[in-house]
């Protein structure tokens, strides 16, 4: 067992067993990039400066006038695709292949009333060991990835799956705390860790 790792020999899933859509949808992939800019205000240090240009933002505001019918719908598989390619902070493996994120643990909750436009995405993550000290960092990576990639009408709730971690309550509270997440994203060490995790995405 390698020292310094909580779980030196994690179970790795066969790539062929990972959930995926039969047909890829490249058009939505490119479109989603535009939305990255929308979250630039929230996590400026993580956003691509090119995407924050005024033209992109004005494109976005014209998109808002679109009716619900033309609004891009997002399903669980798309959310899974966004986060399964994140690299684990300890291993050169993806969260999908380690079974940290699973399709069946992703839930999209539609707006609570006809007047509201706000949906939420709930992701339950399964740490590789019950004592994984990096659980909160993994959760933070998943949260940042989704907040940056999804349209801003989605609230992103990342939680530790019940019964899988000894410190789940603590991690859940931190991941659900907007102020803490915002402050974490101004912390150089954490930014570097998260950027490393997200470097394998797209």
């Amino acid at each position, binding site marked *: 067992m390698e020292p310094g790792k909580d779980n030196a020999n994690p179970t790795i899933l066969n790539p062929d067993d990972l959930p995926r859509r039969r047909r890829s949808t490249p058009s939505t992939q490119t479109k989603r990039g535009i939305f990255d800019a929308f979250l630039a*205000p929230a996590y*400026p240090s993580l956003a691509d400066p090119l995407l*924050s240009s005024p033209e992109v933002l004005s494109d976005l505001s014209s998109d808002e006038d679109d009716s619900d019918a033309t609004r891009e719908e997002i399903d669980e598989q798309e959310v899974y695709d966004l986060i399964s390619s994140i690299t684990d902070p300890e291993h050169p493996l993806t969260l999908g292949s380690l079974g940290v994120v699973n399709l069946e643990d992703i839930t999209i909750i539609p707006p609570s009333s006809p*007047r509201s436009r706000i949906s939420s995405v709930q992701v339950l993550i399964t740490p590789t060991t019950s004592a994984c000290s990096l659980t909160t960092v993994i959760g933070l990576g998943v949260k940042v990835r989704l907040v940056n990639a999804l349209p801003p*009408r989605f*609230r992103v709730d990342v939680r530790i799956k019940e019964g899988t971690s000894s410190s789940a309550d603590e991690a859940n509270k931190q991941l659900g705390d*907007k*102020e803490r997440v915002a*402050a974490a994203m*101004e912390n150089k060490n954490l930014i570097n860790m998260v950027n490393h995790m997200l470097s394998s995405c797209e």
Partner: protein
Amino acid sequence: MPPQQLKPLATFQPPCNARTWLSTPHPHLPLLATACSDKTVRIYSLQNFQQQATISGGHKRSIRSCCWRPNSVGESVLATGSFDASVGVWKRWEENAGAGGEVDFTGRGLAGGGDGEEDEEWRLEVILDGHDSEIKSLQFCPTAPLLATCSRDKSVWIWEELDDGENFETMAVLQDHEGDVKCVGWHPAEQVLASGSYDDCVRLWREDVDDWGCCALLKGHGGTVWWVEFEGVEVAKNLKEGAESEERKGWLEEREKSGPRLITCSDDKTIRVWRRQPKEKKEGGQATGMPSIWKNRDFEEHWFEEAQLPLVHDRPIYAVNWSRKTGRVVSTGSDGKIVVYEEVWRTGDVEMTDDVNGRKNLTEWIVVADVENAHDVFEVNHVVWLERCDKGKRFEGEEVVVSTGDDGEVKVWTLD
């Protein structure tokens, strides 16, 4: 549908291109200060909704909160609390400093000119270091030269101003909370401070002989307490006008003995009103005025949960503000809603409305107005009531709501 409507009046220009956290009105000038995650504070005019100045250069990380010092004559004083763990104190001379502090709210104060040269005039007076991690909130005491700050380091600090705000000395470091302290708020008439925390609790603090200590622990919320605020000194007029019966009059008297109540909001999606249990008066110790009642009494205070406001929010509630003028309450949060509530006399069977402690509650809170998607699809971090100062003001003392959002916008809403 609620009986009234919140209508958008204006958005301050230009908006910030990063998250804005909180906005607070100047104590007597028609100005608004907005704390921004781009490490600046924007000063906006409440008369024309345009930016007057940007305060920058003092902090290395987001400015989470800012507050004006009340009762400053001839000079504006603003304190900023940042994720860089420091507090900045900024000053600017007021143009009509010779006017004895009484500034005509509707006239051409310094906000009316907009000639752009104000930018140079804001100066950083002092930086207060001491907290170990991000500052979340700060507030000047309205009745004494004290500044309270709180932080993720689980502590509340009380600073005493020396030499008219040129220096500050640490008066107390209060460490009873078991998690980040998210917010602090001063009592309007007494030197009592409330704080809300990540540990889901609210604590009240005051000075006992020479030491500050926790005089009350308020438990009930099931999540982080994001905001605490005391009521104004006066009980809402609409309740007094409706207090015809002896029962209602007696109930109001009883409430006045408690003094201003406290309102809190939380991640648990509730808003709660807390009231102090009035202490029995000692023989012969009956001096006039509120503060004397508390002298030479037991240090500990007993507060109870008096009411919960209607459950309207379906995500964490980040801010709640109590109008000093009308007693109305406004709230906002992650769901992007702004909701206005009013306390009214209960009609119908009062016997059925005892609270958990068996006390009769003769009033109830109702929703009088709400708006969804107040900042498009973004979260709203803060709301505050303030007196309307623009030309369109419809009556003396008209109040508007100002909301501050993740979209970098600060908006003004009228209540119709």
